[in-house]
């Protein structure tokens, strides 16, 4: 009975997450509108919130189309892989102590890193199997970018793990009580934040899509709900990274007056807002500039950060 209830609850979680992704698309358009001196979608429903539903409905109703020149199986698998890897990460994400499906799982952090690596497989296979030159360029860029930014990201997290002495997300969150870890890890926070944007492939790091150069990058040949999966993956990835940032660095569920889970949500929303803001104001660097930056600046800094943390931990002990 409990098992059955859990299945239903997981299903509800899934639906909520899909709803959040849809809502975020709408929210981003409104926030961008606000930041760019225009309105954004404001017609359907109060504040235009019905737009999220209309968009989802439109994608669902589109023809299920596979281009004749694409390699069918991989073409069909890729978007699912992307959506899956983004969704599965939420299994280990705690909203507050105890509010999570597997928050105290010992390898929670590793699982999230592993899933984000799986994500790039989806992107790459999508671009590769489309058999389109623009998509291929997008796919190649996605892989190059992911490799160069996962290293500093992992190293930044390693320093954190060193401090907290835990790989479980719940434990890492608890380490940020009462003093948020950003206080101990300001550099690590910056590295993780930047690598996180690169990980979600959003402007200014959306080189795999780069619409002015590559039309739509790796998903040029995708339409309808298959494109919708990629979209879903992008926005869920955004939520996941924002939630991780607030969990790991911004003190997770700690905060006065309000319940912990609400604080966690508010912090996540705040970080997402910053992502929107960046998108509204920054141009896209060239891909080699981006890679240079990843390897020549971010990676040495991440190593330095790890070293300093290790020395500090040896001198003064961990948290």
């Amino acid at each position, binding site marked *: 009975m409990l098992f059955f209830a859990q299945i239903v609850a997981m299903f509800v979680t899934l639906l909520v997450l899909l709803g959040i992704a849809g809502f975020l698309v709408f929210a981003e358009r409104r926030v*961008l509108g606000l*930041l*760019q*001196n*225009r309105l954004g979608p404001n017609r359907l429903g109060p504040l235009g919130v019905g737009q999220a539903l209309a968009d989802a409905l439109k994608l669902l109703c589109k023809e299920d189309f596979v281009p004749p020149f694409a390699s069918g199986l991989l073409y069909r698998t890729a978007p699912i892989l992307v959506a899956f890897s983004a969704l599965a990460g939420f299994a280990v994400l705690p909203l507050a102590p105890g509010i999570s499906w597997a928050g105290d799982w010992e390898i929670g952090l590793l699982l999230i890193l592993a899933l984000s690596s799986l994500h790039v497989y989806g992107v790459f296979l999508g671009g590769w199997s489309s058999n389109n*030159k*623009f998509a291929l*360029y997008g796919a190649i860029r996605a892989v190059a970018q992911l490799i160069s930014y996962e290293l500093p990201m992992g190293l930044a997290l390693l320093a954190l793990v060193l401090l907290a002495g835990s790989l479980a997300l719940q434990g890492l969150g608890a380490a940020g009580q009462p003093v948020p870890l950003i206080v101990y890890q300001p550099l690590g926070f910056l590295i993780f934040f930047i690598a996180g944007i690169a990980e979600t492939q959003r*402007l*200014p790091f*959306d080189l795999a899509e*780069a*619409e*002015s*150069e*590559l*039309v739509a990058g790796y998903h040029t040949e995708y339409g309808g709900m298959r494109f919708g999966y990629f979209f879903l993956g992008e926005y869920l990835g955004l939520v996941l990274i924002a939630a991780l940032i607030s969990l790991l660095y911004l003190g997770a569920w700690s905060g006065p007056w309000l319940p912990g889970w609400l604080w966690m949500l508010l912090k996540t929303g705040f970080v997402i807002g910053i992502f929107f803001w960046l*998108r*509204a*104001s*920054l*141009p*896209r*660097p*060239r*891909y*080699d*500039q981006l890679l240079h930056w990843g390897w020549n600046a971010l990676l040495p800094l991440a190593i330095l950060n790890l070293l300093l943390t290790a020395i500090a931990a040896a001198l003064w002990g961990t948290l």
Partner: protein
Amino acid sequence: MLLAEILQRRFAAHPAGDARDELPDFWLPESQILPALAYLRQEREPAMRLLFDLTAREEETASGSQLCLIYHLHSLQPGDWLRLRVSLTGEKAPSCCAIYPAANWYEREIYDLFGIVFTRHPDLRRILLSPDWEGHPLRKAEPLRATERPPLRFERGCLQEQLAVYNPEDAPGEGEMLLNVGPHHPGTHGILRYRLRLRGERVVSVDPDIGYHHRGVEKIAEGHSYHNFIPYTDRVDYLGGVLGEWPYLRAVETLADIRVPERAEGIRTLLAEICRIESHLVWLGSYGNDLGTMGPAFYAFRDRSLLLDLIEDFTGGRLHPQFFRIGGVAEDLPEDWQEKLRPVLDRVEAGLRDTQALSIDNDIFRARTRGIGQVSTAMAERWGATSIVLRSTGSAWDLRKTEPYGFYPQLQFAVPTASDGDAWSRTALHLEEIHESITILRQLLRMMPSGPVLARDAAEALMPKDRTLQDIETLIHHFEQMAAEFGPPAGVALGLGESARGMLGYFVCSDGGPRPQRLRVRTGSFPHVQMITELGQGLAIPDFIASIGSLDYVLADLDR
């Protein structure tokens, strides 16, 4: 020795009698084209560095139709222009690509539209029309209206065959890849196809495939009276508004020898500068999009809409005011124009700070545009580039300053230049030119002359409608004008203007009839896009997009 003497002695030229503008104008024998051009480009001081335009014309003579080529050369010294005309005996002419690389596309265009074959041309293909087009539409034998042609039909079976001509025979070499950027691509600013040969992500060669927007405006002109053609000039460069009307009217007014009243010149200058700012703002916004930032577009368009509202208020039109008339402008400005213009200028000026912060002051924007799309002065001259592209290479050449027209002689303004010739400089120049235009407009607020806005005494100038119901002379004259009964005296004239896209030239040939015998539109975008064949080489795709975007071309201006 004077140029005229040299041309006459060495190259057996004789002066042309029917030029009604002040350009030195000579007929050359066919055999002397190449030697004369080589002399002018290489030996003459100052060298004729710019092949401003090359076009053809077909005249009906007693002995049948006669083709001639018309070269417009310029040395980039104030007022130093030269027009050379060559009567052809057949339908062949020597190609001057080796002397002026810019001639490549001009000759292809002439081949396409007139059927003149250029010998030793490196790549003589159709350029504006599709490769399977039959006939050469600017020939007089071709029907004026599309409806007089048989319908264009594709047989079902041969569609593949028809499309085969679009598949390049130049298959990519070893390790190379062919990439079509366009016709539908977000980075090309319109329907235009760049065929790139790539090695990795580096461009080996570029072959722009243009003509998707070709509307045959030069042929259309031959079917319209001089007045009726004015609205078409707005649409050649659809972002330029009245900037396109002005050079056309300068040509017609030169032909008809009309002196435009002072106030009309002031109003023309005023509207032209508003349109210039507006056009520059569109470019600043869309160039941001090329680099992946959405912000500048909205801030630039916010300010632009203020200007469009203003233009609507003054002229009744927004994008295409079609407000200039032969001999002046259609209406006087509204009485409170100064009160309306002043606050808009302040707001546009303040708004520019936002656009600037989001573009040239942004670090990523700098990294993307510094040293990218670098054009040298020699390269700009080689391809006939003008306007901001030329000025970004350090050459302070602006028609408004070097050969002032309209109300510009009375105005104080600077010609901003840069020395790097890169995309960043061109962006900065766009911003600086907006500031200069605002300065000009502020001066016009004080200095706008009074008086009539239309030269009412000239025969070709438009008769005022309000007087037609009062005296019979005006009524008859107005009727005859509207019914296209007469035109300016026979002759040719070149009208020039500094548009936002480059130097715009209208070369109008009149045979005394009510319609132009031949009308040639020389636009800025055409040479700029041709320059991409050289500029694009060796760039990576992102830089390629950043480079072509920085040239500020408009597709309708390119294809006409």
